[in-house]
């Protein structure tokens, strides 16, 4: 591990200021960053601890929705009544992430910034990996990749983004709010992560020194649900996950928003399917056809054919679950 200097930011302004140093990294819960430094995934020269920055951990109502401070802990977000009642999809997604201990420490702002779980990327001694060492190749492409992408991959990277909360946030059309000395931004969660066609080495669109200050959710979506599929019941990343938020007219879907997780380098909204779902009952047989419309663009790897089938079934199931919510 490389030696680094440590600074504790006392305020948002100080954090932004300190964040402009070369090779600086923000430390929130530290559940990802510390592991990266240990494995050798990154080696920042300067670590800026956000723990003492005040005013960034609230969950509060805003005009037309809710704002979550970036430093709110995952468990606090999931258990907040505004979220648990208004946005069950997000609450469920969080509560199925990691372990209770990690969720007590990890922040909602740090979560979308987590990196891929591709085993080659996480290898201690460094396997060929364009995300680890740009230009070194992609070991997964010719290696073992049966947990990898079915949408939006290129030969330069076939990884999926593993996080759960962003899948729910994408289905909710949430927006990530950032700050930066050169100006903050409002970044839709759906556009936060970077596909390998844009840049195989990158994970997200954050600039150096750009601070996430919060996440804004539009109007509540009480009819929403999250489904996470994994070999074991707890403490494991999704093989495939699915989030749905429905608006209903009696027994019929008026508007559906459906996103899949762990199928691409970003949460994957089923846009074509959503258009066809309007007017259907959630358990109607036509739901399957509607979903299929979004799978026309699926392009599985040799090892991920099976994930196409799983993802389809998951999308169908999550719509049923959301309707029952």
């Amino acid at each position: 591990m490389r030696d680094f200097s440590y600074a504790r930011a006392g305020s948002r302004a100080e954090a932004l200021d300190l964040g402009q140093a070369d090779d600086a990294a923000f430390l929130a819960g530290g559940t990802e960053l510390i592991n990266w430094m240990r494995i050798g995934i990154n080696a920042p020269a300067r670590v800026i601890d956000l723990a003492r920055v005040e005013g960034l951990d609230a969950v509060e109502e805003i005009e037309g929705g809710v704002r979550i401070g970036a430093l709110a802990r995952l468990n606090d977000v999931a258990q907040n009544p505004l979220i648990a009642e208004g946005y069950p999809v997000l609450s469920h997604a969080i509560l199925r992430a990691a372990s209770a201990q990690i969720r007590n420490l990890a922040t909602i702002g740090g979560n979308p910034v987590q990196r891929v779980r591709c085993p080659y990327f996480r290898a201690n001694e460094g396997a060929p990996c364009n995300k680890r060492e740009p230009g070194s190749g992609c070991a997964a492409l010719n290696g073992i990749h049966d947990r990898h992408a079915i949408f939006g991959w290129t030969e330069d990277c076939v990884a999926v983004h593993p996080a759960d909360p962003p899948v729910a946030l994408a289905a909710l059309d949430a927006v990530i709010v950032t700050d930066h000395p050169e100006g903050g931004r409002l970044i839709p969660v759906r556009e936060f992560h970077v596909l390998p066609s844009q840049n195989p080495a990158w994970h997200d669109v954050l600039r150096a020194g750009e601070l996430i200050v919060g996440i804004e959710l539009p109007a509540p979506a009480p009819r929403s649900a999250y489904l996470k599929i994994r070999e074991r019941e707890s403490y494991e990343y999704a093989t495939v996950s699915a989030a749905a938020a429905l608006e209903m007219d009696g027994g019929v879907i008026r508007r559906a928003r459906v996103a899949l997780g762990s199928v691409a380098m970003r949460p994957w909204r089923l846009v074509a399917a959503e258009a066809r779902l309007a007017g259907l009952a959630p358990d109607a047989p036509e739901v399957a056809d509607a979903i299929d419309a979004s799978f026309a663009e699926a392009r599985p790897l040799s090892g991920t054919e099976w994930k196409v089938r799983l993802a389809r079934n998951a999308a169908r199931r999550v719509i049923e679950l959301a309707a029952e919510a």
Partner: protein
Amino acid sequence: MAIGDIITRVDAPTKTTGQAIYANDVNLRGQLYAAFVGATVPSGRIVSIDPAAALAIPGVVRVLTEADMPRPAPSFADLYVPPLATRHIPLQGLEIAHEGEPVAMVLAETLEAAEAGARAVDVVYDAAAFTDPALAEPVDPDPGRGDYSFLDIAEFEKGDAAAAIAAAPVRIARTYTQPSRHSNPMEPCAVIAEWSGGRVTIHDTIQHVAALQGVITGVFGLEMDQVHVRSIHCGGGFGPKGFIWPHQILVPMAARVVGRPVKLALTRAEMYALVGMQPHMVQEVELGADENGRLLGISHIASNETGVTEDYIEFSTVPSRTYYACDAIYNRQYIRRGNVTLPTYQRSPAEGPGSWALGSAMDELARELDMDPLDLRLANYADVEPSSGEPWSSKMLREAYEMGAERFGWRNRPAGGTRDGHWRLGYGMADSSQGTQRYGSSARVRLRADGTAVVESSFSDIGTGSATVMRQIAADILGLDESAVSSREGDSVLPEAGPTWASATVISTGTAVHRAATEVRGRLARLAGWPADAVGVENGALTHEGEARPIRDILAEAGVSEVSGDGTFTPNGGEFSDAGPEGFPSRVFGVIFVEVAVDPELGLLRLRRATGVYSAGRIINPRTARSQMTGGIIWGWGMAAMEQSRLDPVLGRWLSKDLAGVAIPTNADIPELDVAFVDEFDERSGPLGAKGIGELGATGVAAAVANAVYDAIGLRVRELPITPEKILAG
């Protein structure tokens, strides 16, 4: 405290309060920390090693390569492999046998400097093509490549199995595979070694203290009294701490080279390179039966992966010559060599993999016969040991079947495929059984003037409750209270005990403790002037014909400060080990029933409930025994539903070398488990009437689960683990 009482593990308070001192908690004055540089290629040669950048890091003291290391003494050649796991010791040459093999060892004043140094060493390799053992040709094991061949038999023949199967009215022939699996004990391997004069002291975490002591004498040409080994706590064994692996030799070597104590703890990733795993296996099973389900022939041919240096054999064909009555049996073991760390025994060796294949095949046969799988077992009940025809030492499996079926409700279970929402329910069962191993062991019991006793023996308590049970046995014989008996274990200065593996500790060391305590009781009787065979014990007093005298008073009146007794257990013929009493083959038996839920659309498999009932001799401590069985069932669930280590086909490295990328069961996966034992006393197995149980629980579980999955959705999975992609493919 008596045999049969429920007693909480005596090591629980120190462990749960963090006070237990494990090997890596030991610190010695002047110690250096070691970190390995692991080969990044799976096969080839080292061309050059440049330590300059590492040596420039503050705190780095030495970078040892093969050029710096001493070569083993001539007595090294006399060591058996096992208990030496492999004769291929890294840093002794330039050839690389597998990815991750150490090519250099960095010694530093701090762990951080050692690790940074290890990253900075520049190694150039001449990489060669590597062999993935899963794809290698199966060949006969070579008895010249290690001594694993001598641990069981590679070929067994009784009658003409091929002809019997060919002529049988009902036949099945199937192939079952399973992946490599790493054990991942919670505490990784750790060693610290210090030389003083010509003597070496080693703190380690191992399942057999005497094995390390013996190997170290052989490596360095020392006498036993020049090697002091301590393994006071062992945070889980499961196999990789059984035999002696190269890092346990390299650390004392390094300490000798630099003249300072050297300390090494393997990282989780290094546990995938420096110690063995359960091998990838392919098993072909053919069964022939008559219309009533009576087995006419069994053929079981297995092959397992091994390294390029020795031929490790996973004797998984054992169940097909020991589980069922059959006149025609054929077994054959092959190996497939490739560039991986040498595999090793893992809970539960031989029968774990073997019961998966045979237990699945029996279920397939039952389906073919349209017979209940339990009835098929009863139709082939082995009243005598099938391979030899000799009577069992004891066996109450019929009673276990009956009790298990009753507790589980097997006979009136719902139909397979019954729905619960999106879930389909399935029911499966299989036999659990493990052979017996006993090892020469000795123990001493010392009864002191204050009425307390101490048990002394070098056995290793790997967290299974061995120390608790040994104290319990001594307390029972001496009529003492729980708090009055302590123990000293895990140290080579103590009377030598056999290993804590192969479920052997209670029957071997326990018998030695029983004899030592009985000896003490006899001496006490003599001091009291009573006949040794007519005394009893009760609440710290010796009794005879209605008279009771406190032990303390007897010692005080006789003016002795201590009465001590030695006990030994010697296997048949004075050998190092045996497989049970002479002429009476010994095994433990049982049955496992499971209910699973399968969501075929989402590929999900979950355990709903399980019942395991066992015929395993006398149970010394129902609490530690139950923990062994539930732990075994959970181990089996992991094997069935998720665990696998996969070798990258291009890079020749394990895909994931940690617990983030390799799933093992969590608490949330495990429902309440129903465990029971048949009331049994195996008179032939020794004075305790007990047998070994540590490996039993994990046998049969994978087959029972696969059988239940078939019951639920009609999909037969013959390739473990049963992961979502396999269920979705069904």
